[in-house]
């Protein structure tokens, strides 16, 4: 069984490049050149240098002693929250900005939901002195105001999107429309492992530094490169793809993705695409989608803006269908509880997204000798307003 993308851009039955002819030259250029560029000596050197000295990698793998005691199993946290700009998103934007320059592009566009990818893109554009336009739905602009200000301070132009439901999906549509209207000089930095081939593979490649580091860090700390299981949250799925990647062929390692159940997968307010969706085509790839019987895309809901996406990357659809990875869903309530627990036991305030991965610890049967690695994809600074809203309610505290 192969879990790698094939030449046509497919993971099993998922992926591909369902692009309008208007996007063909840009996508073809990427497809024909990305492997050559990212495997070149110059690229590898600059990428390694920036990840180390600019992003601050390697990110620590931290043995969480009090969490381990609480769950009576060994819990390790991969600290992507300690990266520059506060999340794993920067791994991808650093890779893509170097690629964009190698392709001779002069202008960068991006979409963002919670604003983390927007900030990470604006950051690398400042670093390289490139003009940057970030598309963001009006709803997200309003609920993630600090990130909007950060992007502006970094020199990016933030375009408020009023089409559709005014969230991440619509921001992605608008970024793709921008690309159609600027076919010559623009590179589109997609923020997750979604979109047409080669984006899912490219983004996974840049994020795979997460599992590459996990292997040697586990070796140092546990005497084995392989954990019992790796747990990561999944929206589009880039941090999970990066955390799973170097374990895909080690089938003994359990891989667990955690989707946002929102108010519950049996309610209409959920973003758990694999739990409630079915395959279709959105944003130029075939994957699982949340949709009506008529094939219209439905609006997702999650307490975390970063998981508020009605699709999922094609790699995850493939891992789901083949059974290589398991996918669970955590509700808003479970997520808040998990976030408050980590904060109190370890002094780490996780992003709401990452707290979905932590919530899975209550759903999995773990043995005392198991080595569980949880990917803390981002920090919780951006979510303080939400956390404070629920903090005083005992319902969310673990006794």
């Amino acid at each position, binding site marked *: 069984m192969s879990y790698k993308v094939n030449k046509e851009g497919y993971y099993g039955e998922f992926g591909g490049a369902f692009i309008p002819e*208007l996007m063909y030259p840009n996508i073809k250029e990427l497809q024909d050149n990305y492997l050559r560029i990212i495997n070149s000596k110059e690229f590898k050197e600059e990428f390694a240098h920036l990840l180390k000295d600019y992003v601050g990698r390697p990110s620590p793998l931290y043995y969480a002693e009090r969490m381990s005691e609480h769950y009576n199993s060994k819990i390790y946290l991969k600290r992507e929250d300690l990266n520059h700009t506060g999340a794993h998103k920067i791994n991808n934007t650093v890779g893509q900005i170097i690629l964009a320059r190698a392709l001779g592009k002069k202008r960068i566009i991006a979409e963002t939901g919670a604003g983390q990818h927007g900030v990470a893109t604006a950051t690398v554009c400042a670093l390289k002195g490139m003009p940057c336009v970030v598309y963001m739905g009006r709803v997200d602009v309003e609920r993630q105001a600090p990130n909007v200000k950060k992007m502006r301070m970094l020199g990016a132009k933030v375009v408020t999107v009023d089409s559709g439901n005014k969230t991440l999906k619509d921001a992605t549509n608008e970024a793709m429309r921008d690309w159609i209207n600027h076919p010559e000089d623009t590179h589109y930095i997609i923020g997750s492992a979604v979109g047409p081939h080669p984006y899912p593979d490219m983004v996974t490649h840049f994020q795979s530094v997460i599992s590459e580091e996990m292997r040697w860090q586990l070796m140092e700390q546990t005497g084995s490169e392989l954990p019992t299981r790796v747990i990561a949250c999944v929206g589009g799925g880039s941090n999970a793809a990066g955390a799973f990647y170097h374990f895909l062929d080690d089938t003994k390692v359990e891989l667990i993705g955690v989707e946002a159940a929102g108010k519950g997968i049996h309610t209409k307010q959920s973003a758990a695409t694999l739990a409630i969706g079915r395959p279709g085509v959105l944003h130029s790839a075939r994957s699982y989608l949340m949709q009506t019987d008529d094939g219209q895309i439905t609006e997702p809901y999650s307490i975390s803006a970063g998981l508020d996406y009605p699709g999922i990357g094609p790699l995850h659809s493939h891992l789901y269908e083949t059974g290589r990875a398991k996918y669970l869903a955590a509700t808003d309530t479970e997520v808040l509880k998990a976030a408050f627990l980590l904060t109190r036991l370890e002094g780490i305030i996780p992003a709401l997204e990452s707290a979905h991965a932590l919530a899975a610890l209550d759903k999995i049967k773990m043995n005392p000798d198991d080595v569980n690695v949880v990917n803390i994809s981002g920090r919780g600074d951006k979510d303080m307003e939400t956390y404070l809203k629920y903090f005083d309610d005992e319902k969310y505290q673990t006794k």
Partner: protein
Amino acid sequence: MITNRINKLFQGDKKNILSVYFTAGYPKLDDTVPTIQGLEKHGVDLIEIGIPFSDPLADGPVIQGSSHIALQNGISVKCIFEQLKDIRKSVRIPLIVMGYLNPVISYGIEAFCKKCNEIGIDGMILPDLPLNEYNRSFKSFFEKYNLHNVLLITPETSEKRLHEIDDASTGFIYMVSTSSTTGAKKNVSDYSTEYFQRVNNMKLKNRRLIGFGISNHKTFDNACKYAQGAIIGSAFVKAVSQEGTLDEKIEKFVKSIK
């Protein structure tokens, strides 16, 4: 070999072919059939029936808006097929279905093609279905149910790919005037005619219609100099959004173009 009303339309030297796109279920849910009948009555040669989609990637604000309202009106693929079931009792000109892939996949690719054939649809334009994916999983059904797959070319399409698309096309080629989403403010006469000339000189086997940015008599006329005709979408959708009866709006619009 796919042959139907589209081949007949492009037979011989017919010039100034006017193709009009409209959004099914817009402005009112039940306007689909009267719009088709009105367009034929007032002299349109070919009609593109737009199937609304929640995420119309290649469309600008006008068609995004009409799609959104049509969906709010309650339109669906099933509903459109129901509305169109007797359309061939009253309409003779070629009809094309235009939409995005997901509703087609959701309905079932073969079931969708079969239904189109039963109704008397002559072709499909699916902007997010590129040639390789068409060949991979759609072509056999299009052929089985006698539907032309209308492919797009743009100013950025390479010569090699133009030939590939020409070889794969059976009805006509949709020549996008400019690298943009639909309803762009620029109009055709603003462009260098270099692209139109270049493609003209290639002696492709398929006939072409020029679309995107055609909005009035002047732009239609200019496009017709370089192709067999032209396609109007956003400008028509805007026209039916105005006050007045549907038939009057259609008559006034078609007269203003031809």
